[in-house]
């Protein structure tokens, strides 16, 4: 399997000394990697680093075999992302918001409308985003991540604010795209949700990788991903004490 993402000994500390201390993770083509961890464990920091929203202090970060910072424009053509709350311009309609991203990836309006259809927002294509509910904004954010036909999709809490139907919808989209070969990195607080879509999981704690395993191995050894997560956190806390 080709390695798509390589995060090697990457460190990024904010002014408050929080962030990630020394993270090494690699993601292969076709993987759906779940990042699981308590608040402040460094999940979003990793995702922001991959999208170029923050700069690392040290370490090596490669995407598609290229240094992510030196080849930013080149690698980002193949990356779609939804980090924290979706970045939506309230004064623009759903399709106009989506076209801001689509144009950058050379995607036409027809394909953008198709993507809106995929996330169930086609009937609202011309509605202003300021009138959207939290769930609709989240779905629009997801469509912005997918519109460029990316090889790698980075989703930070993608089911935030979604109702049950929305959660199932997102899961189906991820599964469908993954079948086509798209690689995903997904973070979530909901272990059961990650368990359903991911094939690998990395547990983060205090800016470090506490454990990493395939979901099939975890399912063999533990009753659920939640149990696995709690056990890893407990061990890490114990080791730190």
């Amino acid at each position, binding site marked *: 399997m080709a390695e798509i993402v390589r995060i090697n000994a990457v460190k990024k500390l*904010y002014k408050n000394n929080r962030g990630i201390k020394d993270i090494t993770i690699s993601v292969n083509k076709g993987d759906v990697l779940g990042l699981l961890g308590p608040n402040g464990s460094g999940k979003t920091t990793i995702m922001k680093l991959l999208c170029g929203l923050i700069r690392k202090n040290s370490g090596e970060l490669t995407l598609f075999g290229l240094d992510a910072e030196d080849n930013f424009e080149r690698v*980002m053509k193949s990356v779609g992302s939804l980090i*924290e709350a979706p970045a939506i311009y309230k004064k623009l309609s759903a399709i106009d918001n989506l076209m801001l991203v689509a144009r*950058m990836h050379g995607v036409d309006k027809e394909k953008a409308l198709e993507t809106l259809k995929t996330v169930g927002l086609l009937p609202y294509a011309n509605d202003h985003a300021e009138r959207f509910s939290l769930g609709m904004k989240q779905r629009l954010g997801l469509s912005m991540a997918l519109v460029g036909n990316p090889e790698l999709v980075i989703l930070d809490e993608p089911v935030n604010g979604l109702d049950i139907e929305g959660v199932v919808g997102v899961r189906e989209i991820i599964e469908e795209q993954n079948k086509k070969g798209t690689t995903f990195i997904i973070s979530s607080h909901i272990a059961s949700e990650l368990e359903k879509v991911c094939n690998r999981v990395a547990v983060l704690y205090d800016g470090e990788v506490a454990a990493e395993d395939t979901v099939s191995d975890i399912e063999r050894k533990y009753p659920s991903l939640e149990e696995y997560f709690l056990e890893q956190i407990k061990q890490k806390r114990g080791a730190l004490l």
Partner: protein
Amino acid sequence: MIALKNELIKLFSKKKYIVFLIIALAIVLVRFLGTIIIGGMAHWALNNGFELGKGMASVYDMVSFNVRVFTPFMVFLAVSDLFPSEIQEDTIKSVLSQPITRGRVLAVKSVAVLIIGCICYFSLYLMCLFMQLISGGGFNNAFTVFLAYVIDLIPLMGVVIMSVCISLMLKGPALSLLVSVIVYLALTYLSYYNGTVGSFMFTSYLEWHKLLLGSTVPFYVIVSKTGIVAGSILILYSISYIIFDKMDF
């Protein structure tokens, strides 16, 4: 070009630019109607018969208002929308996570603001020209004033970059707008009161058009100051780039 189009779409989605432009055009209209009516009344007083058009509007009349007041304000407004406002609302993430480097994002946003400045310059110019035409002035000085506006675009670049630099140092669009206005006023009045310091400020050259309109500034002095204006722009742009490139979002 695609990124520039995106920035312009974002700016024009906000109605306030159209509203402010309409207000400025209304000011031009009122000012010229005043000129026409007062001139006509004066003529009537002299000849005992009102005759419209004897108080002639000139395309040159509103250049200073446009160059010194209206356009800089619109520029500050656009900068605060494209930088601190996007940072505060987190929408800048959707720009920075696209296949475009931060250097290009900075350049594209600055050019988008400069385009807003151009639109302001030439909208008011066209309105003034229209008023001159209907008041019977024909196309007198039309091309000269057009060239004057084109020349004034160079120091306007300095105003844009100064505001960008300020906005990247501050948090919040309102604060950025306020500080940009204060710094602009300070630099402008500094050049009035202290000629030596003022000669190094790009704001002193916002009225370069006077060189074309037969005022006091000699041409060779303006040419020699081109380096200062370009230097100011380069320094401010470099500072802006360093700040923007190191920012975490």
